[in-house]
C-alpha cells in the first residue's frame, strides 16, 4: 500500500473571501480555481508541498442533499460548528503574528495546553475552525 493524503475539503460560503484568506493570510498558493458564482472549487495548499491540498468547495453541492439538510449545514457553518482542520508550523508565534493582523477572527491565542502541545485557533471567513499546532 502506498497511499498519501492528497486533498481534504472545507466548505466556503463566499469563494472570494475564502480564497483571499487562504492565499493572503495563510500564504497558500492557489493551484486551481474552477466554476463560477457560488459554485466554485478552489484548490489551495502550502508552497513547496504540491502533494497536499485543501479544496475549498461549495457546501451541500451534492444533489442528493435535501433542502433541510442544506439549511442545517449552512447554519452550522455560520455557528462555527461544522468544518475544521488542524495545521502545523515550527514557529507558532511568528505565524500567529502574521495571521492575526487584519480582520482575522482569532479564537485562541497561542496557548500551552495541559496535554503537551502548544496551539492557536482562528476562523476562516466561512466559519471553519483553523487550529495551528506548534511542531516540536
Amino acid at each position, binding site marked *: 500500500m502506498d497511499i498519501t493524503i492528497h486533498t481534504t475539503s472545507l466548505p466556503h*460560503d463566499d469563494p472570494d473571501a475564502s480564497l483571499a484568506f487562504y492565499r493572503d493570510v495563510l500564504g497558500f498558493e492557489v493551484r486551481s480555481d474552477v466554476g463560477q458564482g457560488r459554485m466554485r472549487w478552489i484548490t489551495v495548499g502550502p508552497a513547496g508541498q504540491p502533494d497536499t491540498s485543501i479544496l475549498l468547495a461549495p457546501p451541500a453541492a451534492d444533489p442528493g442533499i435535501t433542502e433541510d439538510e442544506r*439549511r442545517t449545514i*449552512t*447554519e452550522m457553518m*455560520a*455557528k*462555527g460548528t461544522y468544518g475544521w482542520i*488542524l495545521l502545523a508550523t515550527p514557529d507558532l508565534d511568528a505565524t500567529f503574528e502574521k495571521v492575526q493582523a487584519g480582520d482575522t*477572527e*482569532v*479564537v*485562541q*491565542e497561542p496557548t500551552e*495546553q*495541559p*496535554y*503537551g*502541545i502548544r*496551539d492557536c*485557533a482562528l*476562523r476562516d471567513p466561512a*466559519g471553519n475552525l483553523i*487550529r495551528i*499546532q506548534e511542531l516540536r
Partner: protein
Amino acid sequence: MCQSEWRRARVEAQRLADLARLRRVRDRIDREYALPLNVEALARDVNMSAGHLSRQFRAAYGESPYSYLMTRRIERATALLRRGDLSVTEVCFAVGCASLGTFTTRFTELVGMPPGAFRRQAAATAAAEPAGAAGPASQREAGAAITVDTVEGMPACVAKQVTRPVRNREAPAAGQPLA
C-alpha cells in the same frame, strides 16, 4: 425570482448573519474567558441586549453565554490545578472568576468534587506515578469526571474537545450503596 422566494432568501441570509454574530460571541468567550467578561459587555459589542443575546445563544448552542463562559473557566482551572504549583484561590482568579464561592460551586457541579479535593488528588496521582507511566486504572481513580484513558491516540485538540466539561452533563452524584 418571485417575491416570496426573494423574501425567504432574505430571511435566511439574516438568520445566517445572526448565527455568525453568535459565533463571534462564543469565540470571544473562548479567547478572553480569563478577563472579567460579563454578558452585558458581550451583548453590547454585538449590538444586542443581554436578554436577547442569552436567548439566542441558548437556542443556537444549548446553553447560555454565562454558562458557556463558566464551563470554559472550569475547564482551564482543571488544567491549572493539575499542574500543582497554584493554590485554588490563585487558579480561581487566573481563569477570570471574581468569586471563589461561585467558582467552587460550579467546579463541584461540573467535575464532581471541590477544586481543593481535585488538586490534592491530582498531586497524589502525580506523586504515585512517574510522569507518562500512569495506567488506565489509576487515571480512572484520579480522573473524576474527566478521564484521560479513553482519549489516547486522538489528536490533542480533539481530546480537548471530548474531555471538555459540558453543561447539562454534570458529574453524577456519588453512587448510593445498595442496601
